[in-house]
């Protein structure tokens, strides 16, 4: 067990996996000489050579398409999409090719690739470099989807993704790269596809993932000081997603607050809320609430950017509103 960062944990996962599996290649813009736009792949080209760490031209569709072809023929490519905001460029190769090949071809041809990308706000990067587009991925049958929110998960979920027989979209959060935490390369927090109760509590269940996990845990501490105990569940994997722990928790607490950074309309939070609403209807004391990003493009002004997405204070205030009907000042 060592303390490291989210960024280093991902880098270490790539190194350990590449040392174990000679078929793994990295393919993307600036993954080699530059070391990755956020430094995740720094030094890997020196360790593994230019045939395995491939600097690609700025051609996102063909980067993902080439990864599909390499995966079909025996390699295990890790394609990198520098920003998830560029997903619009690659949706055909992702949603029509990677996702559907196994099915369309009757199970003959799998596409064991990982698409590493990062998203989210926090750097005042404006509308085309700050989005949370996981709902686009979650909607597509055939794609696995992972969004780690801790250092240990960043390592282990990437290692697990690199053993999957199907395409995995692995979405990092740009605001988490400097997050510090313990990494135990031998022990994952929980199995692949299984949500984890990060904090126990009896009064409400907060369902979240990625950076909002950290905000939700901070909110839970603030709530505890007010006498409200929140159970915080980290979804970790959005596909596959074993809902057992989620439903058990909500049936116990009777209240559910789903927190995401994404614009809330049509979001993963909406999907989770719907599932909870169906499965826990008779156990719910209150309506299932969604707390997400405002339904706007991300503005560049830091105050507007911060104001458009939840933080620990907003999560805590919303939870108090739900549990005690104490309306916040902004309500």
């Amino acid at each position, binding site marked *: 067990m060592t303390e490291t960062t989210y960024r280093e944990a991902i880098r270490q996962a790539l190194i350990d996996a590449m040392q174990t599996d000679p078929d793994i*290649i990295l393919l993307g813009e600036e993954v080699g000489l530059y070391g990755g736009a956020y430094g995740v792949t720094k030094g890997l080209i020196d360790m593994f050579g230019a045939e395995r760490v491939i600097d690609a031209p700025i051609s996102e569709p*063909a980067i993902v398409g080439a990864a599909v*072809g*390499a995966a079909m023929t025996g390699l295990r490519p890790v394609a990198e999409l520098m920003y998830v905001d560029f997903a619009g460029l690659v949706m055909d190769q992702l949603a029509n090719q990677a996702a559907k090949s196994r099915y369309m071809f009757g199970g003959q041809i799998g596409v064991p690739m990982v698409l590493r990308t990062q998203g989210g706000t926090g750097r005042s990067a404006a509308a085309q470099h700050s989005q949370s587009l996981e709902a686009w991925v979650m909607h597509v*049958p055939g794609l696995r989807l992972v969004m780690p929110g801790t250092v240990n998960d960043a390592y282990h979920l990437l290692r697990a993704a690199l053993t999957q027989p*199907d395409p995995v979209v692995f979405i990092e959060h740009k605001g988490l790269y400097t997050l510090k935490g313990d990494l135990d390369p031998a022990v994952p927090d929980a199995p692949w596809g299984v949500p984890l109760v990060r904090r126990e509590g009896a009064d409400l269940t907060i369902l979240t993932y990625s950076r909002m996990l950290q905000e939700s845990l901070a909110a839970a501490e603030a709530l505890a000081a007010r006498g409200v105990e929140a159970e915080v569940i980290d979804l970790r994997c959005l596909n596959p997603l074993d809902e057992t722990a989620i439903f058990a928790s909500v049936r116990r607490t009777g209240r559910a607050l789903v927190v995401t950074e994404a614009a809330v309309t049509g979001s993963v939070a909406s999907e989770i809320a719907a599932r909870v609403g*169906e499965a826990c209807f008779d156990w719910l004391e209150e309506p299932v609430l969604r707390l997400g990003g405002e339904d706007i493009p991300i503005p560049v002004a830091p105050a507007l950017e911060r104001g458009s997405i939840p933080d620990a204070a907003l999560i805590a205030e919303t939870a108090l509103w739900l549990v005690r009907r104490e309306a916040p000042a902004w309500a």
Partner: protein
Amino acid sequence: MTEARSNIAPVLRYAAMRRIRSFEERVGELFLRGQSAGSMLHLSIGEEAVVGMTDAMAPGDTFTTHHRGHGVFLARGADPARMMAEIAGKESGYCRGKGGSMHIADRALGHLGANAIVGGGIPHVVGAGLTYRNRRSGQISVAFFGDGAMSQGILYESMNMAALWHLPVIFCCINNQYGMGTRVDRSAGKLGFGGRAEAFGLIAAHAEGQEVEAVHHAARDLVAAARDGRPGFLEIDAYRFYGHARMDKSPYRSPEEEAEGRARDPLTTARARLAAEGLADAADLDRIDAAAAVEMDAALEADVAAAPPGLPTMFQDVYAPGTPAPRPQADRLRAVLSEAPR
């Protein structure tokens, strides 16, 4: 066969072209009988000279095709009965009735998939090229597509990568003059696509689509270069004899143009050439034609008799076996309504 035959390969290429023609005619019949799965049938009649390209490939080489790829797959060794079954959406088809005409594939024969997104399969050969380069396997991968894909950006991204990384890859454009109803001179600012490929650093070649031997001659050189890490581009200048899909009666082109285009028939040309060169006489070629007709009639009948897939198979192969599968909607609804206390 005649005694003058010294080189059987051109005769075999004629036979391969005849099998394609014969197959496609029966696929059309399947549609007319209401036995095909859906209306998305794109016939490659008139484009049979692609055999010149497929015949230059070796066992172990891979390829992707477009939505008009029946001929390419047959020429690479496909079983017409399993193809026909897939086109009709039968369990015995290549993809167990999940893919159909536009998504047929066979890993064993190196078919990495037909694609219904114009240009969608092109970058996959770049990835296959990376695999073969890194493994020094000696294989090549060939993307087959039509002139319509010449307007897709991903083609040029792929060409650039292939040249940049010296990949064992060939881009084969079967130019049948039409992207759906739009003739190529209404979609391209400049005709003669080889120049575009050369601009990216590929070796470009062009062959007339009624001359399978010319196609083959060009293809052999490109294949040899590709195996050596010098990727290429081949334009086969053909004519799409019939409409875009089976329902299309081609109102956007004149009967005169169609007559002229259909006169550029690779089968007619091959027959004349084989006879002139003494490689086969009319009787030999008629026997080849008859054998193809018998084979394809049998494939058609076997298909009509084949069973459709069972309903539960719809949930199979979304993900790999042994990993979490999609939950049937009925199961979810049952859980919701049976667990809720009344």
